[in-house]
């Protein structure tokens, strides 16, 4: 066979595909439609302008990756709240057990999936970053 033939055949396929409709999602120009039950970045729900979380420690207890850190405190009304609520996204396996375990429905998983960051410290999501925006 002429050594040029395979190159021409290859180029023909390439050229054909240049004019075909793309099969894959054109991220980031196109955004995926995230399913409602998609398990992305966590969010702490807010009610009466404060976090619903009562710092019961069930999420760190159930977490198989041990990525959740909670510290409880007592507020002025003697109620329990989370002084610290941190999730280490580098360790999180997005299993959603924490949401399932939550007895007060204070935690959800959002559709947010773009979690890339430049430093390791930025992967540790503090309570402020996790609180849902109103």
């Amino acid at each position, binding site marked *: 066979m002429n050594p040029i033939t395979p190159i021409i055949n290859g180029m023909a396929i390439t050229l054909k595909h240049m004019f075909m409709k793309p099969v894959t999602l054109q991220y980031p120009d196109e955004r995926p439609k995230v399913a409602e039950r998609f398990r992305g970045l966590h969010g702490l729900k807010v009610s009466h302008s404060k976090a619903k979380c009562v*710092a019961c*420690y069930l999420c*760190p*207890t159930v977490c198989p990756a041990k990525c959740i850190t909670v510290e*409880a405190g007592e507020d002025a009304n003697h109620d329990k709240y989370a002084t610290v609520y941190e999730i280490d996204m580098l360790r999180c396996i997005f299993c959603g057990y924490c949401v399932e375990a939550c007895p*007060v429905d204070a935690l959800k998983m959002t559709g947010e999936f773009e979690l890339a960051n430049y430093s390791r410290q930025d992967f540790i999501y503090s309570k402020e970053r996790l609180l849902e925006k109103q």
Partner: protein
Amino acid sequence: MVNLTIDDKQVTAPKTATIYEAAKINGINIPILCHDKKLKPFGACRMCLVEVEQMKGRQIPACTTPATEGMIIRTSTPDIIKARKMVLELLLLNHPLDCPVCDKSGDCDLQNLTYEYKVNSNRFTDEKFNHEIDYNNPLIERDMNRCVLCGKCARICDEIVSFGALTFIDRGIDTKIGCEFDDPLNCEFCGSCISVCPVGALLARPFKHKARFWAMTKHTSVCGYCGTGCNVTLGVKDNKVLTTIYDEEQGFHKGQLCVRGRFGYQFINSAQRLSKPLVRKNGVLSESTWDEALEIVAGRLKGGSNVAALATPRLTNEELSLFKTMLLENVGTKNFDHAAGYAHAALTEGFARSFGATASSASILDIQKSDFLLVIKTDAYETHPVVGFEINMAVKNKGVKLSILSDKRGKLSKLPDAKTLVHRPGSEIALLNSIAKTILDEKMVDASAAAVAGYAELEKALSGFSAEAIAEQSGLNAADIKKLASEYASSEKALIIFPTGQAYTGHNAVLASALANLAIITGKYGKEGCGVLCLSEKNNSQGAVDMGFYPQDGGLNSVQILDACINGTVKTLFVAGENPLVSYPDRNKVKAALDAVEFLVVSELFLTETAAMADVVLPVCSYAEKEGTFTSTDRRVQFIKPAIRKSVQIKTDFEIFSDLITRLGGQPPLRPALQFEEIAANTPGYLGMNHVSLQKNGAFAPVITIPAFVAPQALTPVVSETGKLALVTGSALYHSGTLSQYGEGPMHVCPEGYIELSRSDASAYKIAENDLCTVSSATGSMQLKAKISLRMPAGVVFAPYHFSATPINSIWSGAPVTLVTLVK
């Protein structure tokens, strides 16, 4: 024993057992909320319902029904399970379902049973309670909305603590647990109620929201405060001791603790702990390395008899014995002592000559087995609260008679039928001699006494102590003394209890011998429920005596060491854990000694007043970070292991002494266990013990007594002066030594020193509660807050000695009774 059948299993149980106890002994678990091993059966919760065939299958409570011969019992038929489910439904009807925020969650009996019986819905509806939550005190939070009315708190407060702060109040559906007139809680804060609460109605505030129960690891240890030797379980998370956990199976005291044992653990993780060795450079203590610090210390220890040492009896046996070996063999000095040099005299001198042993001839377990208790000073409750609980139980449950000889009334005086003879301060020894004299005169002497060495001399020496003569100088009447003598002598079993400590200078060798004379003359020693029990102050005071960490063969004692520091014969002073500046008498002298000594080394947890004067300060470990053994006041040797990892920069005293021995050219043992092997081989009573065998329950070191009478000397009574009050020093209930100042719990309830005086003196001096008074003695003057109480007799004032901010030793120079003036 009775034979019965439980769930088709043939079992036997003691005659006194209830069905519940019989089942438990035989490994059959009956669910219950209102039962505790230490408390009397109550039958409040109805969870323990069982069926007894002989009772026609009726459902009866297992916890209040005695097990009888031939009973056929079923503990879990479908009917019983149905009934239990209903009980739980009814309890959950009013119980707030706030498990996520309740600190009891995970350790909650109600939660566990709800889970076990799968009660996940409720057929009934009702409103939840809306009781106000008591946040008024810093230690115990009371949320009566969660209460299931099992009554355990009220019962333990009454039956064991004997305070009676809590009870059922109101009626019917409004019934709740409360204080008198529904006031805020104001008790002695031992926290026993918290420990037995099956739900989260009573919670420890220092632990509030700190951690969940399941997240903590539980480490058993031995309390590091007083000499009772209570076992504690420490709840540890992230290498921090967060709380103490109740275990009703633990120790002779069945998990019962006092305020400092339960709430005084915070010193372990205190932010004030020293973290690096400090060396004085250009007059300032600055951080250094271990190598530098120990090299300096080792260099100074080469001074032979110029070196002296003071140790705290809070060190382990291994550390004390290694310290002693180092001083004797590697340093070459005999000058070492502990506990201010006199707090151990009752054992090392008194009992040594009266019983031929430096330990008590009775144990704490004898208290409940006795018929008659003679307590010297009501302070026995304050110094050793858990021993106090034993006395409470003996008197209230076993009908043991209690007589107290004291210079003030106290909590023990309030026990049923307790007789308190309140004498003039300082006259207790004369009184005891007069009791012995009365026993001789009334021919109540035991047959064995005449054969004991020194009987004739005793008889002669007691001639001056007739009840009439002593009654006059002690402020009692002769009939009372005689009555006490005859009650003591005529009881089949009688036990004498007296506290010792750095604040109890009057409780010395002479007092111990006077008490021993009483026991020997009536033959009340060496038998169950008899003897003389010396309550030594710190957690290892008895161990320090057993290890021989006190001057022998011509060594200097604490007082002489301080004198020698002043006159320059002692040039290097090694203080291991003591804080003489606060806890030794005569602050001026101690300060002069510490100033004068050329080189002062202090190994401490904190930068105490004494450590602040040192040339080298070595940071050491608390009892929760080290391994070793403690010997309790009744010679129970108990093993402790680390509950938390020590920080890299601190060492145990054992490591420090080992390192110093190496630097001095010796060969130290590698591990505390090896040191203990040497202790076991050389200490009377410790033979055969080792760390492995002691791990579970510890072991008693037996005491062999060889009785001898010690003839009393004539005593000069304390002369009172008009316009002056008699100051007696002692321990406050909430504190032990100076260490408890670093525990948050004790400092919440008793944050500062005070002077306690009677109502009549208060009105005579026009002093109101909490007034700042100037107290002056011959040696100095200081300001203390006034506390007016009913227990003090007129003319007597009391001050505790624990506080660095108000050091009582600036007016107290070590006399049992100090005459002071009081000005508002």
